[in-house]
């Protein structure tokens, strides 16, 4: 049973609301641009790229919580990880719906062919599929019910993020700059989960402590 003292201090709740609103900004921007006719010559491409980018950023932000906590010791960060993860899933869903609806118009035959035949679609779709069980098991109840299996299951986010980067890299025509930036960041975040990376973070944290920061 969770103890009373384990509940969030009251000041966390405005933070949570603020974070929620910040996470909504990319969508608000799309809607505003859409109403102003500011989505450019190819609005559907704009929406597709934007939602895909924010899904990927959401995943990277989610993955940055653990290393940040190790570096700073701020455990309250962990309380916001779920929202970041769910927003990543939210933008990934918008991205998928844009593809299914605005790009393929729910033409099931074409969609299936695309998923099977086009490696970049396969990677992106697989990444999304992996995120579904994570979103479904993100509640407190499911965390408790799954126990230690919960963490094992949620390691799928590493694979999903990797597939997201691959999806991006495989679709660009020539300029790999952007996918490489996301891939590099993902690499760094994953490194800080391996023993040598964890050591680096903990050494840095100890030094901070000694410096009296």
């Amino acid at each position, binding site marked *: 049973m969770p103890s009373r003292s384990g509940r969030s201090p009251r000041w966390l709740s405005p933070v949570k609301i603020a974070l929620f609103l910040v996470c909504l900004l990319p969508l608000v921007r799309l809607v*505003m641009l859409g109403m102003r*006719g*500011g989505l450019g010559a190819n609005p*559907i491409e704009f929406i597709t790229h934007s939602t895909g980018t924010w899904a990927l950023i959401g995943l990277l932000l989610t993955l940055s919580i653990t290393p940040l906590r190790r570096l700073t010791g701020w455990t309250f960060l962990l309380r916001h990880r779920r929202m970041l993860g769910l927003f990543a899933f939210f933008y990934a869903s918008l991205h998928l719906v844009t593809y299914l609806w605005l790009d393929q118009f729910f033409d099931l035959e074409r969609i299936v062919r*695309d998923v099977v035949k086009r490696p*970049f679609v396969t990677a992106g779709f697989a990444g999304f599929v992996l995120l579904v069980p994570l979103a479904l098991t993100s509640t407190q109840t499911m965390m408790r019910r799954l126990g230690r299996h919960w963490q094992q299951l949620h390691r799928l986010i590493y694979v999903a993020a990797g597939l997201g980067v691959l999806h991006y890299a495989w679709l660009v025509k*020539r300029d790999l700059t952007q996918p490489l930036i996301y891939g590099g960041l993902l690499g760094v975040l994953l490194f800080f989960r391996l023993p040598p990376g964890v050591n680096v973070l903990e050494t840095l944290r100890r030094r901070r402590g000694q410096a009296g920061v």
Partner: protein
Amino acid sequence: MPIRPPFDPVPPSEITPPDVYRERRRFMQGAAALAASPWLGGAGTALAGPKLSGVRAGAYRLDEASTSYKDVTSYNNFYEFGTGKSDPAERARSLRTRPWMVSVEGEVKRAQVWDIDALLKLAPLEERVYRMRCVEGWSMVIPWVGFPLAELIRRAEPTGNARYVEFVTLSDPARMPGQRSRILDWPYTEGLRMDEAMHPLTILAVGLYGEVLPNQNGAPVRLVVPWKYGFKSAKSIVKIRFVEKQPLTAWMAAAPDEYGFYSNVNPKVDHPRWSQARERRIGEFLKRDTLMYNGYGAQVAHLYRGMDLQKYF
């Protein structure tokens, strides 16, 4: 053979006046400035060109609505100015189109360096409304102004060895910021077989919508080959070289398994990574089926008779 217009041949430049667009754009920019945030604005600026005089309506027209001037001039692939679609409109201002020389050389009896202003008077300018299909899966309808490339080729008097024509784009990293990164092996080169280059549909374009070609669209002179994917139509040309062997084009050098020499629009031959069966016409909601040879099969299919189009993509 020219396509007969099944409708009233009013030049599209008179149907969709660019001034109206620009007026609206000025208003939009004001609104965007009010909204303040560049993250919420991001509207690329189109450069306006002076009107070209003496342009006659050409024989090649389309019974399809032309893509708006704004979209034609703000959504471009011109990697010399960056790989983003709005980069050319935002950055091509730095390109200087005067003085400009075009060297016609190689296997010709009359090699010549043309001054752009002389080149503009080489043949009567006509308006040609063509479909433009990008290899990425989107398309436009563009009212170009130009003249058949064949006019220039005839004056150059190619020798019997001239079997291909190579086109070279300006190399100027100082004014073309995209050339500072090694996305492609600069300068950009393209090529056509002699019969493709001589084909009446193939033009050198110097304008669009009745106006001087905006920088982001390949000023001052570019190729337009409407039955091929857009990247075949080299922009900002400085050299036209007649050669005996098939030239290596910039995209073939970059990714030979993805981009072939011919690159004819073909819905049945997919790009290795995506389908070419359909396209999004800019300005339309639903996708359309891509047409064989981009709808110019009646005029060009004979050029490729007997060729395996899967092999010669």
